[in-house]
């Protein structure tokens, strides 16, 4: 069969997952096609124009440390940077930025076009070519056929997308773009278990019609923290966002009109994210709350469009306008684009291995919302992992994975493939057991060597990484070795400031752990040459390490207890069907994976905690009997 074009890796969809996937595959040296419906919308932010936030910002840092592109692109196009949780400990701080939506798109496209071996192709993929359980390529709507040894599906909300506003529904991938109905069909034909999820967006307003004085300004940070370890200066002029509130009369009006909402009329079957509720949900589920917070987020420097964050809705457009007018300061505000809810297909991520390749079809990878996640950052990191592994697959190299103990990406991937999803999956810091070690500021230490070994971290970045490592090592030994003694001139002053007994001698690392000790104080106690040499972030990284050092052992001990059954052996001819209480699906998964130990069984995708304890008790009981 003659193909129109032949590639090693082909990526369907140029959203946040697709862009990262295509970039990483191409940079690993395989010829890569990025096929998308509209090449003018590469890297489109279909929801709010912002990247990062708690745990999400961590992920962007991790992507950057591994050699991905999202961090660099947002640093060049971000118009308001804030480090969240500044008042809290370093492990839960995380960068966030508002993006200029259109700048982000063009910068993303520019980056992709700069990569050799990456080919942008516009077109609509309508089918996957699969023979002997191997993916061979794709068919486009216009009849073209592309050959590829690996295909990454990163189609976002496009699979069978269905938009709702009020009682109106229409098929679309997102507002203004067609859904992928044929492709959705081909997943079902291949036997993939497909479910339905829902998400939504708020209306966007004309900034010229907003009474800004009615809102509280929310400025960015004075010293903004970038996402990429490579960024020294943020180039975009910084803007303010604004905060406002809904009122009781808005809530009443929504409640009166609930029958107009497809969410409440039963029209929408897909499950929406609980942490990203529509305004309808908020006023119903938290009826006692007097007001709900709203954020007015400008969409960019060259547009008047303002994103009304916090007001996601699928009520009819006329009603949305009426409600917006009831919000203080938005009395005159005009809606440019109404909010909407969208339902879309996702494929059960328990079909995937840790490399994000499907177990059903060799060479087929899934990344992003197709796996049931939500969020640009969550999508991008999956794109990165899928892109890397698709290239490795083509090159015949061993698969790449990151663990949950070393990264949020590892947490996300493992959660997805083990537990599956029943609502759109978003990352949270509480999902990471090892939270105190997974900081935004040490993502490079956690992952850059891995990225370098893969070939994704370039020479310039690698040199910078090593230079920082060098500084950090000197700093760490200084903190451990330099101590403040009773005889020192500074001793009395420091003790007085802290108002506590310091003992005869205290190392700087110990001192830093005390409540109330600032990094400025520690810095002032360091030798001058070190003070000069080290960057702002170096000291905070070194101090964070010593702050959390004490927690490592007790965490490890409690985790070890949790996994102390891992060594339990599973007999070779074990019939899992004999364990009463296990569903056929679970038995099937166990039989396919043939685990040798309980620890191996624990890592099988899709095994529920209940199933695992049944297995454990069975094994323990039988061992007892033996």
């Amino acid at each position, binding site marked *: 069969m003659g193909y129109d074009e032949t590639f090693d890796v082909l990526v369907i969809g140029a959203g946040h997952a697709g862009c990262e996937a295509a970039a990483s595959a191409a940079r690993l040296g395989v010829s890569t096609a990025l096929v998308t419906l509209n090449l003018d919308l590469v890297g489109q932010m279909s929801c709010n124009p912002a990247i990062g936030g708690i745990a999400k910002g961590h992920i962007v840092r991790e992507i950057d440390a591994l050699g991905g592109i999202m961090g660099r692109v947002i640093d060049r196009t971000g118009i308001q940077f804030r480090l969240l*949780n500044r008042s809290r400990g370093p492990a839960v701080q995380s960068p966030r930025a508002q993006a200029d939506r259109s700048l982000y798109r063009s910068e993303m496209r520019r980056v992709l076009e700069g990569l050799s071996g990456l080919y942008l192709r516009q077109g609509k993929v309508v089918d996957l070519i699969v023979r002997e359980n191997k993916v061979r390529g794709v068919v486009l709507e216009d009849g073209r056929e592309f050959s590829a040894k690996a295909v990454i599906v990163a189609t976002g909300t496009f699979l069978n997308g269905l938009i709702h506003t009020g009682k109106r529904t229409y098929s679309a991938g997102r507002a203004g773009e067609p859904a992928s109905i044929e492709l959705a069909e081909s997943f079902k034909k291949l036997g993939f278990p497909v479910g339905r999820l829902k998400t939504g967006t708020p209306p966007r307003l004309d900034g010229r019609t907003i009474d800004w004085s009615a809102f509280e300004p929310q400025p960015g940070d004075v010293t903004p923290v970038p996402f990429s370890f490579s960024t020294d200066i943020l180039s975009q002029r910084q803007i303010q966002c604004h905060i406002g509130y809904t009122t009781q009369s808005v809530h009443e009006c929504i409640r009166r009109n609930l029958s107009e909402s497809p969410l409440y009329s039963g029209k929408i079957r897909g499950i929406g994210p609980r*942490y990203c509720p529509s305004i309808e949900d908020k006023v119903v589920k938290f009826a006692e709350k007097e007001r709900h917070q709203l954020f007015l987020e400008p969409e960019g420097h060259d547009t008047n469009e303002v994103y009304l964050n916090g007001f996601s809705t699928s009520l009819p457009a006329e009603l949305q306008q009426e409600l917006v007018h009831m919000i203080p300061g938005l009395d005159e505000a005009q809606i440019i684009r109404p909010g909407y809810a969208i339902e879309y297909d996702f494929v059960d991520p328990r079909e995937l291995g840790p490399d994000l390749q499907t177990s059903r079809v060799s060479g087929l990878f899934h990344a992003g919302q197709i796996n049931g996640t939500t969020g640009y950052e969550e999508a991008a990191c999956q794109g990165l992992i899928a892109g890397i592994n698709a290239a490795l697959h083509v090159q015949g190299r061993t698969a790449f994975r990151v663990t949950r103990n070393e990264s949020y990406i590892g947490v996300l991937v493992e959660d997805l493939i083990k537990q599956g999803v029943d609502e759109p999956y978003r990352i*949270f810091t*509480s999902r990471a057991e090892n939270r105190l070690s997974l900081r935004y500021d040490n993502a490079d230490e956690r992952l850059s060597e891995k990225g370098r070994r893969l070939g994704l971290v370039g020479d310039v970045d690698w040199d910078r990484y090593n230079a920082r490592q060098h500084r950090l090592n000197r700093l760490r030994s200084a903190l451990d070795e330099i101590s403040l003694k009773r005889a020192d001139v500074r001793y009395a002053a420091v003790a007085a400031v802290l108002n506590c007994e310091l003992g005869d001698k205290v190392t700087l690392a110990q001192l830093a752990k005390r409540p109330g000790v600032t990094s400025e104080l520690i810095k002032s106690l360091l030798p001058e040459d070190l003070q000069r040499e080290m960057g702002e972030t170096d000291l905070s990284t070194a101090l964070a390490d010593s702050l959390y050092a004490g927690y490592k052992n007790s965490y490890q001990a409690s985790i070890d207890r949790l996994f102390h059954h891992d060594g339990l052996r599973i007999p070779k001819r074990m019939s899992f069907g004999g364990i009463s209480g296990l569903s056929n699906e679970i038995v099937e998964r166990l039989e396919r994976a043939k685990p040798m130990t309980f620890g191996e069984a624990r890592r099988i995708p899709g095994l529920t905690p209940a199933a695992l304890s049944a297995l454990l008790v069975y094994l323990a009981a039988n061992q007892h009997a033996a």
Partner: protein
Amino acid sequence: MSTIVALSTPPGSGALSVVRLSGTNALKILKRLTSTLDFTPRTATLTKLHHPDSNDLIDEVIVTFFEAPHSLTGEDVVEISCHGSPSVVRQVIDASRNLGATLAGPGEFSLRALSNGKMNLAQAEAIRDLIAARTETAAKQAARQATGELSKRLAEFKTRLLDVIVVLESAVEFVEDDLPPTQTNQIKEWLLFVLSGVGALAESYQSGHLLRDGIQVAITGKPNVGKSSLFNSLMERDRAIVTAVPGTTRDTLSETIDVGGIPVVLTDTAGLRQTTDDVESLGIERAYRALNEADVVLLVVDGSVNADWHEAGLNSFDHKTQVVVNKIDLVQYGHSDLPQGILVSAKTGEGLDDLRAAILGAFRGSAIQADGLLVTNARHHEHLQQAKIEIKEALVALDEHRSEEMILAPLHNALRYLGEITGETTTEAILSQIFATFCIGK
């Protein structure tokens, strides 16, 4: 699965006894016994029970049917509350067996529950104890834990712990969300509540392990004072050799007896004296080892002779030593010049009840929960201790006004330890509670 039947309340006569049936035929058997056609699940029904063959009335009873999987074992379960006479109970069980039920083995109900996913690991471990239980009381404790009572008790504290985690996690995770400010005092109060609850349960292990492993009681004293005789009379049978010759007992001898429901491991030892006899000195060596390991040492002296019993050289065991003055049947005059101790006669049995009570003192002395639930499993005890340490750590961090993640780290550790007993709390469960508690999300 076959249908099993057993008495599920303690044997003996009480006001009520409950006979339980579990298995696919449980309902069918009930219908045959009662000639009633329909039972609404989970509803108590007053009905008459007849012999299936003779149709003779057995008893008027209250029956409840639990439909699978909503039952203790996850199978169809029938509970028959009959009058608490042994003969009625026997008739109910026999009638059920006639209709195809088999008598349940030890712990079999629980084992079924386990394989039907109705039980967690703590409960499974308790079943192991149940089967190995040495006395009725120990079995009852194990049974309480097997039915998840320890888990249930812990659930209260775990729920509070979870409340704290939810509040702190939300503060960390949803900074942009206009949440109510964290009430540090409230958090502290909650944590202290959890700490004391978990602590009390942990302490109950002191009694709990005695209940499970038995109170170790060693009998010692000079030769011929009547140690073996006392051993025999506490055992209520002639187990040890008794002669009038001093130095009769050479080797230690242990047996478990039931003292007021508590297992007591009683050890008879060789009389302590200087000797050149090799066998006897080996026996005395063993006697000292037994004294070392004992929870209670009974130092027996002969009340009928005026010997200086202080010589025995047992000062190092003072704190756990109970002096027992034996052979008081031979003491004619008043007891006033006898050594301080419990006065008994191994021969007549006089004073033995006082002695039993003194032995149980060791058990009573340690903390017992108000409702009598004791932690009997060493692993559970270890987890509770660890959880305690972690919660204390969190309280320190709270007092130092540390950032939430540093308070949370030990709390998550604590939750993991408690989870080892009650079952894991998934992140999903924590998140669900957050979303149910707070209005989160833009």
